[in-house]
């Protein structure tokens, strides 16, 4: 009984606010039969009141009935005042229960006017605050927050106590606070409390909200709002910096992936591999081919397609790399500028080959379900695919470090790099070490291609977009030093993202290039330069 009276009070309040005082006295109980019957009338005011009452009743039939009304599919039989919904397929259902009904005779449509339409709009907003899907509830709360529509207050008051989802509840409270803050008739204490809620939200919208108080606001409230603005501003700066660092890390990890293979061929072997970008491209196209095969023969495997593509891309790109080394580069050791020319030629050939094979247009590479989506930490939006790439770049870096420092192959590579003739004299097959080191660098570029296929267009020009950036990273970090490449990539990535808001994307990049050019003047051999006799 207490519950019933509580409902009735809320209902009366909601109806009062939503439809205006004129209709307030016509409030009925929450019985759906009675609610539905109220639509069986020609009186527009009565219909609008029915809409409001239905919306705040919490009845499961509220949404279908109001939608039917909006679309002109709600009909009633004047004889017994029963109301039906005409479904999209032409069948009928009882409005009160939603159960199917035989086609009724002698019905009339429930009619609409602007007043009723307004009531419908308000009701739909309130209804979505109680939608079963939490995402829809959040969206509805956000919409209220943006519009600060005071009429939604009643709906919020109903929705809030029943809300179980903490995230949705928070949004609803913020929406409620937004309305209160904007309402100069609300008591000061409540408004100041509401300002606190908005301040905790702490984003750009909150700032805008607090900055646009109505003119007849009391000084006390205004003071509270000003304090909140300062606080929000401060926290925004911090969050913005955090977001920039995150974007920068994300860009930096992409740069790291693209450059780290180059750090081996250029840094360790002294070969300027202008075809490095094409190795990345080969990795991306391998992903595309793997996905094509999976789509046609085993669609169930799609979510693991990247794990199949990774080893394949490594082998394909690495194989091409070994081939290039055996056919061309081994004739050019000790002549770095000539390797630049020859590998540039190779890069043109590979680009054209891919263009002839796969066509000049972008190829669609799908994202596995586990890599799509995003989540939030505070005000930080984090997309899963970027996170995956950052982790992947870290893994590749660690693996490479391990290979070079802890395996016999790594030992031989370093030996050949430092003193080729001595290494040869010690029985190391320098030829094979060269070929495999080059293959390793190319294979890692292939791995990068798999990752980049998730965030970039897969086209024959894919590699060109990364080659200059990769060289910048390697040169900036210091040639022959993997840690330098790591630091270089992350520094350039983060610097780029911090410059972007002030200078724009393009100008930021130009500034960075100019910075690198100037930096090289100061430290001609990069951040972590090798020292000693091996340098020259």
């Amino acid at each position: 009984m207490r519950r019933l009276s509580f409902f009735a009070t809320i209902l009366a309040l909601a109806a009062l606010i939503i439809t205006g005082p004129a209709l307030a006295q016509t409030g009925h109980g929450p019985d759906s039969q009675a609610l539905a019957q109220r639509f069986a009338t020609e009186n527009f005011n009565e219909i609008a009141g029915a809409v409001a009452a239905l919306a705040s009743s919490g009845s499961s039939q509220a949404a279908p009935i109001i939608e039917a009304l909006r679309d002109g599919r709600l009909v009633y039989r004047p004889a017994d005042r029963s109301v039906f919904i005409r479904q999209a397929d032409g069948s009928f259902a009882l409005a009160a229960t939603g159960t199917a009904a035989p086609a009724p005779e002698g019905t009339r449509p429930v009619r609409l006017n602007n007043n009723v339409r307004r009531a419908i709009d308000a009701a739909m907003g309130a209804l979505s605050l109680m939608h079963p899907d939490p995402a829809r509830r959040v969206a509805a709360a956000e919409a209220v927050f943006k519009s600060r529509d005071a009429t939604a207050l009643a709906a919020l008051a109903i929705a809030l106590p029943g809300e179980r989802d903490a995230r949705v509840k928070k949004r609803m409270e913020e929406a409620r606070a937004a309305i209160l803050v904007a309402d100069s008739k609300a008591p000061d204490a409540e408004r100041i409390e509401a300002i606190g809620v908005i301040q905790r939200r702490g984003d750009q919208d909150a700032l805008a909200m607090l900055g646009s108080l109505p003119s007849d606001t009391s000084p006390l409230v205004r003071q509270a709002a000003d304090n909140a603005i300062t606080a929000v501003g401060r926290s925004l700066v911090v969050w913005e910096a955090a977001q920039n660092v995150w974007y920068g890390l994300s860009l930096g990890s992409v740069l790291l992936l693209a450059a780290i293979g180059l750090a081996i061929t250029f840094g360790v072997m002294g070969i300027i591999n202008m075809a490095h970008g094409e190795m990345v491209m080969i990795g991306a196209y391998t992903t595309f081919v793997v996905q094509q095969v999976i789509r046609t023969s085993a669609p169930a495997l799609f979510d693991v397609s990247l794990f199949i593509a990774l080893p394949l891309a490594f082998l394909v790109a690495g194989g091409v790399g070994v081939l290039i080394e055996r056919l061309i580069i081994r004739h050019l050791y000790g002549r770095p500028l000539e390797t630049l020319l020859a590998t540039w030629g190779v890069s043109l050939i590979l680009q054209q080959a891919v263009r002839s094979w796969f066509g000049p247009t972008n190829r669609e590479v799908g994202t596995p379900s586990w890599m799509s989506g995003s989540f939030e930490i505070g005000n930080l939006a984090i997309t899963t695919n970027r996170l995956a790439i950052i982790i992947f770049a870290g893994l590749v870096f660690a693996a490479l470090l391990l290979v070079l420092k802890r395996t016999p192959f790594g030992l031989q590579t370093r030996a050949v790099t430092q003193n080729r003739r001595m290494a040869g004299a010690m029985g190391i097959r320098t030829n094979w070490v060269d070929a495999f080191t080059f293959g390793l660098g190319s294979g890692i570029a292939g791995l990068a291609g798999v990752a980049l296929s998730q965030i970039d267009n897969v086209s024959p020009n894919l590699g060109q977009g990364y080659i200059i950036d990769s060289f910048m990273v390697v040169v900036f970090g210091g040639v022959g030093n993997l840690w330098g490449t790591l630091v270089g990539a992350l520094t350039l990535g983060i610097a780029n993202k911090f410059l972007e808001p002030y200078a724009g994307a393009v100008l930021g990049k130009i500034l960075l290039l100019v910075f690198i050019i100037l930096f090289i003047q100061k430290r001609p051999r990069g951040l972590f330069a090798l020292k000693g006799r091996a340098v020259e």
Partner: protein
Amino acid sequence: MFSRFLFEKIDRSGWIFLVLLAVTCVLVPILNLAVPPTSVFHVSNTAMGLWGKYMTYALLAVAVDLVWGYCGILSLGHGAFFALGGYAMGMYLMRQIGPRGVYANPILPDFMVFLNWKELPFTWWGFSSLPYALLMVCLVPGLLAFVFGWFAFRSRVTGVYLSIITQALTYALLLAFFRNDMGFGGNNGLTDFKDIAGFNIQAQPTRAVLFSLSVIALMLGYLAARAIVTSKAGKILIAIRDAEARTRFLGYRVEHFKLFVWTVSAVMAGIAGALYVPQVGIINPSEFQPANSIETIIWVAVGGRGTLVGAALGAGIVNFAKSWFTGAFPQGWLFALGGLFVFVTLFLPKGVLGTFTEWWNARRSAPKPPASAATQPAE
């Protein structure tokens, strides 16, 4: 003085080159203007335009050879100097359009009207005058090269690092010129030219004169480059190329010599660009693409690095091949160009001309030492 230079410093291939150019300079315009189109000797407008373009490319190649072949500076950014010279000329040509543009604005070029600009940006000041534009053609690339070289050579950035930062330079300019708010036409660049120095740019005689001017510029560029490399300073440049540290230890200010030749080369590239633009009728940011600069390197490598004549020859060969390939097998051009890069570096390290001279000298006289030092650059 000049005649002594001609007879003492120009080698056999240089003489053949100069004579051929002089003949071309006179003959092609005559064959274009005076010989009726029905005759087999007639040179079509298209052909003359194409050859004129090759001449400016050849001048660019000579400029690159001057720094790469004789001083060991592998520039991956000479396309930037070429394009800057081109833009300076393009701006002059834009201002000559006057009220004949689509929007009929007597002052502002069409793209500025389109962007709702009210007045010319300060960078365009003075470009209605040809002498000023010509000054800028030399000054802008020269100044940029000087400043860039000042920093780079003084701090001893060499070899691969220098190549990569020259590439960064042209890439940065590419990004900058793509921006609309730079005031240089953004993505579309400058085009729709009408007049040059009061003459209709489309008219046959004007085009013939432009062709001859390009040939003359190439000849003068060659002579200037030859004068530099055969002078005493040229000997030091070659010494720097072959052993920079030793040259420095001998007491020469290596960076001054480098800076000088680098700036001269950039100005030559700028002049080449300025002659290129009126003949092809457009200049846009794609000229800054690093790929273009790298392609210029291959012209020099194909023709023969460190020979000057070879560089010009290489520009001709590669571009002729390009025209032919893109007509005959459009898909095949990148394969051919890529193959050429690989083939030349692996099998013709001295280029066409270098290989030919070596073979010629060896055939003529066994006891005589093969070629001069200048044709055998070391790393």
